[in-house]
C-alpha cells in the first residue's frame, strides 16, 4: 500500500485549462493516474485530454467523485481554490503553486486539519507512486522505477536528481513526495516518516532537506522515537550565508536558526546516514540493499 496516492485516487485539477494544466493532465494520464475532472471558472463543457472541465470544485466532485485535487492556480487565487476544494469534500490537496503569501498558507493548512484532510505543498512538485502508477503533480515520469525506497523532500529538481540516481542503480521507489520549499507546508517530514513507517512497500527512507526552519531537527527527534526503518538524508545549503533567501521562500537562516550544521548534527545523533553529494545517496542505499 503506497502513501498519499493509490489506485483509488481520483484526481481533479484546479487550473486545468492553462498551459501547465493541460500539459500535466496529459503527463499524469500517461503515468496511469485517474484524472477525472478539471476546474476552471467559466470553462464548463470544455475537455482536456478527454477530461471534463467544470466551473466549480463542487460541480466536479458531485459529477465525478474526485477525492484528490492538484492545485495549479496562480498564487493570489490559491487560498480560495484550496478552501473551495476542501469544502467540496476533497480529502487530499496537492498545491504546486509557488509564491503564495505564507499567511494564506497558514490559513488553509489549518482548515485542512479541521476538515481531516491531507495537504501537500505549497511550492512542491507533488507525489508519485511508481508501484501504483499514480502521480499527482509535475514530477518527470521518466525518472521513476518501482521499488521499496520512500523519498520525501523539500526540493524539486534536487529530488529528481536523487531519484534518477537511485533508478540508474536499479534501486526503485515506493512513493516519492515533494513536501515543498515554503516556510509553511501542510505535510512535513514527521507526517511523511509516519506514513512510510506504516507502508509495507517501503523498506528504507530518503529525506532531502535544506536550510531554514527546524523540520529536519524535528524529524531527527521523531526518528529516534518512532521510526524503525533505516533513514538516509541529504541536506542542501551547508555553505549558504545567513539572512539570504536561497531560492526557496523557506530556505533562509534566520536569527541563528535553520543552519545545515544543526540539521546534520541532529541527523547524526538519530543515526541517519548522511550523503555529502546528492548522488551519494544511491551509494549509501545500495550498501543497505
Amino acid at each position, binding site marked *: 500500500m503506497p502513501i498519499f496516492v493509490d489506485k483509488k485516487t481520483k484526481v481533479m485539477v484546479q487550473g486545468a485549462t492553462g498551459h501547465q494544466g493541460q500539459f500535466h493532465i496529459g503527463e499524469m494520464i500517461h503515468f496511469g493516474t485517474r484524472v477525472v475532472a478539471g476546474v476552471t471558472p467559466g470553462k464548463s463543457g470544455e475537455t482536456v485530454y478527454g477530461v471534463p472541465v467544470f466551473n466549480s470544485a463542487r460541480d466536479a466532485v458531485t459529477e465525478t467523485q474526485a477525492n484528490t485535487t492538484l492545485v495549479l492556480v496562480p*498564487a*493570489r487565487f490559491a487560498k480560495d481554490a484550496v478552501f473551495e476544494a476542501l469544502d467540496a469534500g476533497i480529502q487530499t490537496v496537492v498545491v504546486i503553486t509557488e*509564491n503564495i*503569501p*505564507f*499567511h*494564506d498558507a*497558514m*490559513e488553509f*493548512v*489549518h482548515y485542512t486539519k*479541521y476538515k481531516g484532510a491531507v495537504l501537500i505543498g505549497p511550492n512542491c512538485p507533488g507525489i508519485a507512486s511508481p508501484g501504483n502508477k499514480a502521480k499527482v503533480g*509535475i*514530477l*518527470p515520469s*521518466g*525518472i521513476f522505477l518501482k521499488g521499496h525506497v520512500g523519498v520525501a*523532500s*523539500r*526540493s*524539486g*529538481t*534536487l*529530488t*529528481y*536528481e536523487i531519484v*534518477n540516481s537511485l533508478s540508474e542503480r536499479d534501486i526503485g521507489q515506493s512513493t516519492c513526495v515533494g513536501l515543498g*520549499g515554503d*516556510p*509553511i507546508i501542510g505535510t*512535513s517530514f514527521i507526517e511523511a516518516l509516519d506514513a512510510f513507517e506504516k507502508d509495507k512497500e517501503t523498506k528504507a527512507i530518503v529525506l*532531502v532537506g*535544506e*536550510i*531554514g*526552519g*527546524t*523540520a529536519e531537527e*524535528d524529524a531527527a527527534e521523531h526518528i529516534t522515537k518512532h521510526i524503525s526503518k533505516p533513514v538516509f538524508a*541529504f541536506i*542542501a*545549503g*551547508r*555553505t*549558504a*550565508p545567513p539572512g*539570504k*533567501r*536561497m*531560492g*526557496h*521562500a*523557506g*530556505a533562509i537562516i534566520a*536569527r*541563528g536558526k535553520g543552519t545545515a550544521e544543526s540539521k546534520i548534527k541532529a541527523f547524526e545523533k538519530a543515526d541517519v546516514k548522511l550523503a*555529502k*553529494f*546528492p*548522488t551519494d545517496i544511491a551509494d549509501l542505499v545500495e550498501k543497505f540493499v
Partner: protein
Amino acid sequence: MKLFEYQGKQLFEKYSISVPKGKIVEKESELSDFVFPCILKAQVLIGGRGKAGGIKTGENINDAKEKLSQILQMSIKGFPVKKVLVEEKVRIKKELYLSITLDRSKRMPLLMMSGEGGMDIESVSDNLIFKEWIHPFIGIQPFHIKNILSKLKLGKDEEKELGQVISNIYKLFRNYDCELVEINPLIISNEGKIFALDSKVIINDDALYRHSDIIAENEELTSLEKEAKEKGIVFIQLEGNIGVIANGAGLTMATLDALTHYEGKAGVFLDLGGTDDPEKVKQAFQLMKKAKPKVILLNLFGGITKCDTVAKGVSAVISSEGIDCPIITRIKGCNEGVAKDILKDAGLFTAESLQDAAKKSSEMAGR
C-alpha cells in the same frame, strides 16, 4: 522585505502603538525646529548599527548638526546611511521585549515577550522569554495577554496599556502579512507611558502586492540583484568568484556546497527555476556576465525541462553575448546526450558528475 525603522514606526502609529516624537532628516537645515536633547539614529537595514556608532545623542542644535553630518557620512557594514531618524529623548523606567514571528513547525504566529528588553534576544535565557502561540482561527484573545502579563509584574495601568499594544501588534502582524514584528526595546517611561523605541518589521515579499502603501525600496539588495528581481530571476551575489547557474533552489544550493568541498567560492547563486524559455536563459547569462565571475558553473537536471532545449538556449546566448570566461557544464536527465553534444560544439567543458564539475571550476577559479 525589511522595512526601515521609521517605516515600521509609521505602521506602529497606524495601530495606536506610541513612538517617540520624531522625523526623518536628510540634511542639517531640517534639524532647526527640534527639542533637545535628541537621539539621532541611522536608518539602515542591518543590525548592529549602535555598536557601529550609528546612534548618537544631540545635546543641542550645534551638537546635533555635527552628529548628523557624522552619521550621514557613515557606511554601516557596506550600507551607506542616507536617512537619519531624529527623535525626542524618552526617559526610561523599564525596558521590555515584544515580538511576533512565525513558528514554522507549529504553523502559527508566535508571540514572545520578555522583561529583559534592550538587548539581543538570543542572549536572553529561555526561561525569561514568555511565549504564546496564537491559532490564526481565534486570533489574539484576552487569555493570551493575561498569561504574558501575569509574568511581567507591572502596575495595573501599565498592564492595561501594554495589553492594548500586544493586541494591536498582532493585528499589524496579520493585516500586513508580516514575517516579523519586533519591538526591542518597548519601554515604560518615567511618566508610565509605553513607547516603541525601535522597530523591526519584515513583510512577506509574496504578499507585497496587497499592500500598495508599502514602497518596495529593496535597499538591502545590490544593483544587480535588484535588476534580477525585476526580471523575476533568483539571483544572489556572494563573496566568491564562481558564477553558479542551476535549475531549482535545492540543486543550486547543493552545487554551492560541492564547490566549497573543493575549496571553490561561489560569487553568484542563480536559480533558473523550471524554465527552458530561451529568453529567460538569455537574461540569466546577461546578468551573470555583469557580475564578472572568473568561471561559470552550469549545473542542470532535465526533468520536465528538456536538457537539449536548455543547451540550445545556452549555446545561442554564449555566441550572441560574447561570454568569454570559461564555462563548466554538467547536465543530466532527459535528452542529456544530445545536450552534451550541443554544449561541446559551443566550446564548453562538459563534466560527467557534479563532483568533477565542482573540482574543475574550483581549480580554474583558483588560478
